[in-house]
């Protein structure tokens, strides 16, 4: 349903913007605007939170094949012993820094998918990341992201919020690019205020109206850079107004480690979920996983940040009664080589584990363990599960998007989610 002009006037981006748009409100803005107007639907739908571990997480030191001799021989400096892992079974265990994941496993809130990758693995960070983001084995910079394509299959309900939010100060991930709708990035609520700074004596209201009119003259031709600037600007003003309206709601969270950036970003996500945004997708990332040298301490710290932050997030949602509608996906662009290098680090590899967290998962380890006796020509474990099978499962069973349409072909789904 097209929003009425009255709906739009409640946006808080200034009526002048809409007047300047003329009778026809630009379709993209109408959508975002309807999504951002003053009294939105109260979100009760399912939410997917995607956490990207940037740089290539060392899967073999995350889910550790501690019972395998080859593992210990290949990593004289970096190997973790039986005593140093939190055992999952007689073969594998979690890095001890992931004790929170251990607790979540016990609470039946963690699924581990092992040996996830794709054919002819690409060892470039950027190309492999693009492959994961687009679910396309030969992507270009313009290939739309898999999540953007998924969102495009869903109808837009009147009064709903933006369909997805990127939480972070860095650039919008390709997974969310190239769809019909612009996706905003938010680093934090405080930074998300528009401050005109015009003194009272100089007429701030008149100035705001003029600036909104200038921002929406709409001179950019279709697909031009100028049009992109115009749209980004208008969407920003609208999103800023909407998020200002939920500030102070959905707060009251404890247990998030202060020093972890990830914990703070997840706290914001929880706040927005609890405040009733209908947004169904949140995306954030943690960097630093490209551990070519002196890996041990760095990797341990990163895993601790990931585990402790996600645990706090899920605990917080549980308290608020929202945990059964939130699912978290954790992935990285590739794992790392079995053999450590000469700098007490590891070089780029291939297959690695993917994690799903939340009350709706089929808990435990899925998929075959990496076979360290059958490596590829570069010395990397071969993949057994295609990452697009994980995506297909999430699209069909969690986001209710037709996976074959989004991914371009049919992939066998995995039993990762409980049937509800």
């Amino acid at each position, binding site marked *: 349903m097209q929003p009425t002009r009255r709906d739009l006037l409640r946006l808080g981006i200034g009526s002048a913007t809409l007047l300047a748009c003329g009778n026809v409100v630009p379709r993209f803005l109408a959508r975002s605007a309807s999504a951002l107007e003053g009294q939105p639907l109260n979100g009760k739908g399912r939410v997917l939170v995607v956490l990207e571990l940037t740089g290539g997480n060392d899967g073999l030191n995350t889910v550790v094949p501690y019972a395998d001799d080859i593992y210990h021989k290949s990593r004289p400096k970096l190997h973790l012993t039986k005593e140093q892992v939190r055992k999952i079974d007689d073969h594998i265990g979690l890095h001890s820094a992931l004790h929170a994941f251990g607790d979540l496993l016990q609470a039946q809130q963690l699924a581990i998918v092992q040996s996830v990758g794709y054919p002819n693995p690409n060892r470039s960070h950027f190309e492999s990341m693009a492959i994961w983001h687009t679910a396309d084995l030969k992507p270009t910079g313009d290939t739309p992201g898999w999540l953007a394509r998924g969102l495009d299959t869903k109808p837009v309900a009147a009064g709903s919020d933006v369909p997805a939010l990127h939480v972070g100060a*860095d*650039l*919008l991930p390709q997974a969310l690019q190239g769809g019909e709708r612009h996706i905003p990035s938010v680093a934090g609520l405080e930074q998300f205020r528009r401050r005109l700074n015009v003194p009272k*004596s100089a007429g701030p209201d008149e*100035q705001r109206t003029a*600036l909104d009119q*200038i921002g929406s003259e709409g001179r950019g031709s279709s697909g031009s850079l100028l049009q992109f600037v115009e749209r980004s600007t208008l969407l920003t003003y609208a999103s800023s107004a909407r998020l200002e309206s939920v500030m102070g709601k959905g707060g009251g969270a404890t247990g998030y480690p202060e020093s972890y950036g990830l914990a703070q970003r997840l706290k914001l996500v929880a706040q927005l979920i609890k405040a009733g945004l209908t947004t169904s997708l949140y995306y954030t990332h943690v960097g630093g996983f490209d551990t070519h040298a002196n890996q041990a301490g760095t990797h341990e710290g990163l895993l601790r940040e990931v585990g402790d932050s996600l645990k706090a997030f899920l605990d917080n949602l549980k308290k608020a009664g929202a945990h059964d509608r939130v699912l978290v996906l954790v992935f990285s662009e590739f794992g790392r080589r079995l053999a450590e290098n000469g700098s007490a680090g590891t070089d780029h590899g291939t297959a690695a584990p993917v994690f799903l967290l939340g009350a709706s998962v089929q808990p435990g380890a899925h998929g075959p363990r990496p076979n360290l006796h059958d490596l590829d020509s570069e010395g990397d474990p071969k993949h057994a599960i295609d990452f697009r099978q994980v995506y297909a499962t999430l699209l069909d069973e969690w986001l209710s998007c037709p996976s074959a349409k989004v991914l371009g072909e049919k992939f066998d789904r995995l039993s990762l989610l409980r049937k509800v």
Partner: protein
Amino acid sequence: MPLAETPWEAYRPTPQDPWDLRKVAHLHRRAGFGATWAKLQRNLKDGPDAGVERLLKPRAMSADEKLILDSLRQGVLESNDADRLKAWWLYRIQYDPDTLREKLTLFWHGHFATSNRKVGSISHMLSQNELLRRHALGPFGELLTGIVGDPAMLTWLDGAGSKKEKPNENFGREFLELFTLGTGHYAEQDVREAARAFTGWSVDDNKGKFSAMDHDKGNKTFLKQTGEWQAADIVRITLEQPACAEFICRKLYRFFISETEDPKPELLRPLAEELRGHSYEIGHVVSIILRSRHFYDKAVCRQRIKGPVEFSAGLIHALEVPRVNVRLPALALAIDRQGQELFYPPTVKGWDGGKTWLNSTTVLERGNWVNHLIWGNADFGLNPFNPLEWAHRNKVPTDQITARLLELLLQDDAGPKARNLILEAGRTGTADDLRKALQRIVHCPEFQLA
């Protein structure tokens, strides 16, 4: 092919295609960080050749200027403070007479993107920046050779400590993928062999040091050539590849001309041939670009989204905000928050630029920052911008201030409605009304484009 038969033929003003303010401002946005009113007027009068010549052969720094710069540099080293390092570079960007070199230093910083997050040494980051500046316009091979033994790079991509027993592939891979050839022009084996050839380096006494003992002396087959290659051989063999010249020219094209379209082969090839034919001399190709008909084509004007440094430092520069009112650390912070933290690029690929500069957070940061610049902000130690002082310095009559500010910052590129709203705001000529006009100018979507 002679350049005269390509779009790189030199631009000559004609009555139909005159040398006008839009072209002068375009040149300064692309080759530098914008220009003051006086500089625009001078180059408008003197013509395109004089404008480009001044960029390529800038005046030398005065003794006083050198002294200030040296003491700022000393302060960086003594304080070991990343904020002062950023401020030092922003000072150069604002005040160094050699703006083209500063612009290219920024280009190379994005190309050989090295972050202090891992390097953890202000002095190494400073000396890498000086390396980039020194070779910014010279032969690319010399820059590459410098980078191979650069302490910050040795730490950043783990070249330091990569020994013959177990070579670390990090530097070898990015050398091929991001610094010279791009994917598709080498195989995994070339990465491994390059990594072997790069073994033996470490950082010693703040310098890159090569130790034959840790170096893999064996035969390597790199890009189909076999020998006992060392780093210098890898650089030499890589530069022999036509793909290398094309890779660098494609990036220069993106930087100087257009982010929206990849250059067509008929544009790229002659440029790459010029680069290879002139010992990979970057200045040679940059000079061709800046003089060319293609560069001044209306279709490429405002076809780049300004990066945060261009946007913020450029505005301060164009408005000639007095030195006492420029808080460099606050400027550095604003640029960080707009998504371009100098000396801390997000990954080894640098900043993607283009549309990725703008997301809702950075759009707000840009807007909020210009609003502070215009109306002042006590927290940042910023006084309100004084438009009357600007007019006085540039001998602009009071009733023309708004129109001249509009020409300075947007030339003829504002929309008709915006133009009316701007001129209307500044009509009374009071300082506050001129500020309102200025705020409207920089809120035009066109102002985000370079």
